[in-house]
């Protein structure tokens, strides 16, 4: 469902992604790890065209990120994104944040959008926080609202960009649990994270990136328990 074809991304003279080839099928739960600057977040952000690519092609459900504006918008509707800093709209309540996508993107009538939003908030365990503004919620709660907001547009794949990195350790678990439930529900997921335990338990595929290339790609349990690649072994020791 997602195909990278020799994708190259540069910032000026810096090569961030170096002719990356990658195929991700529907239903996979891909966990991306790697040292900072290895290109994992950039790779994720190329999928929904928040970053433009300079070489190669990237197809999402058959549509190219290098296509026209409306093609890119359709890709974005099919690929929900969760950010490290949550990025909830501060002027809207939790409920309005979740209803925002359906209302403004899909044109869903207000009443229907709010009803759906209520269900989604209940799903992430925040039914009782519907009328709170983001500033009144904890980081973990904000991130769960952000997940519900992305799900509200009914994406086919969910992109998570270090969803727990900005959270205190005791708040991470509530977000990871929501993500795990989502995975168990069959959602296709691509997760940039340092949560190795999550990768091992929920991931169906682990990708280790280094210097803009995919260095290792395989089953999480095997790679984490017996990393053959010396750089991966070193990286895992640092993260643990």
């Amino acid at each position, binding site marked *: 469902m997602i195909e990278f074809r020799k994708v190259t991304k540069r910032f000026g003279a810096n090569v961030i992604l170096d002719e990356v080839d990658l195929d991700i099928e529907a239903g996979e739960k891909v966990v991306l790890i790697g040292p900072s600057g290895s290109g994992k977040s950039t790779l994720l952000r190329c999928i929904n065209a*928040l970053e433009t690519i300079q070489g190669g092609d990237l197809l999402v459900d058959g549509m190219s990120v290098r296509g026209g504006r409306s093609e890119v918008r*359709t890709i*974005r509707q099919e690929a*929900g994104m969760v950010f490290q800093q949550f*990025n909830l709209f501060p002027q809207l309540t939790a409920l309005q944040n979740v209803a925002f996508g359906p209302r*403004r*993107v899909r044109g869903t009538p207000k009443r229907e959008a709010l009803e759906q939003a209520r269900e989604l908030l209940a799903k992430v365990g925040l039914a009782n926080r519907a009328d709170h503004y983001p*500033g009144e919620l904890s980081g973990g709660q904000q991130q769960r609202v952000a997940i519900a*907001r992305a799900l509200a*547009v009914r994406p086919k794949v969910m992109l998570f960009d270090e969803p727990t990195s900005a959270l205190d350790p005791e708040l991470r678990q509530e977000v990871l649990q929501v993500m795990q439930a989502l995975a168990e529900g069959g959602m296709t997921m691509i997760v940039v994270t340092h949560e190795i335990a999550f990768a091992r338990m929920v991931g169906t595929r682990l990708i280790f990136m280094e210097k803009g290339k995919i260095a290792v790609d395989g089953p999480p349990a095997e790679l984490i328990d017996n990393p053959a690649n010396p750089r991966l072994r070193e990286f895992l020791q640092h993260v643990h």
Partner: protein
Amino acid sequence: MDFSWSVIWDAMPALLAGARLTIYITVVGLLGGLVLGAVAGLFRAFGPAILNAIAFAYVELIRGTPIVVQVMFIYFALPVLAQIRIDPLTAAILAIIINAGAYIAEIVRGALLSVDKGLREAGLALGLPFWKVLVFVIGPIAFRRIIPPLGNQFIVSLKDTSLFIVIGVGELTRQGQEIMAANFRAVEIWTAVAIIYLIMTGTLSFALRVLEKRMRIL
């Protein structure tokens, strides 16, 4: 010296007529300035290169010249250049529109750019076109941040109308000047004029503070 209340009492009708004209110039000028400033600020923040450059030139031209020179140019030079006659009141209003517009453009630009880039990305990532992100995400947040500096500009523009004495518009300062020229009661007249300005700017400040309180600044 003897402070004579009757001098103020006698001058009041003329001064209030002047104050009315001051308010009229300010309100119409600021409404126009808001529209012009919003458009120019939007171009400065997110406009294509050409519109951005035009807006930049406009802001720099106006900020770099005194408002007295601007209104003199509109009233005296423009008719010569473009063969159009402009009455003093129109020239005054135009001067406020153009002058306030430039400062408001900078306020709008600053507020738009101060909105966290992550929020823009969050809107785009949902699949919205950029204009909708502007209308539903960036705009509402920027609007709240505009209010305090905008209040400041409103007060500055209100006081700037006093400079239109140079083209003979009968606003408050001009009225004071004319009365004083007839009766030489400088203390009474300028005290009264100052207090009327204070009442107008004070009312404006108060209204803006109420608005600010009712809107949560994000």
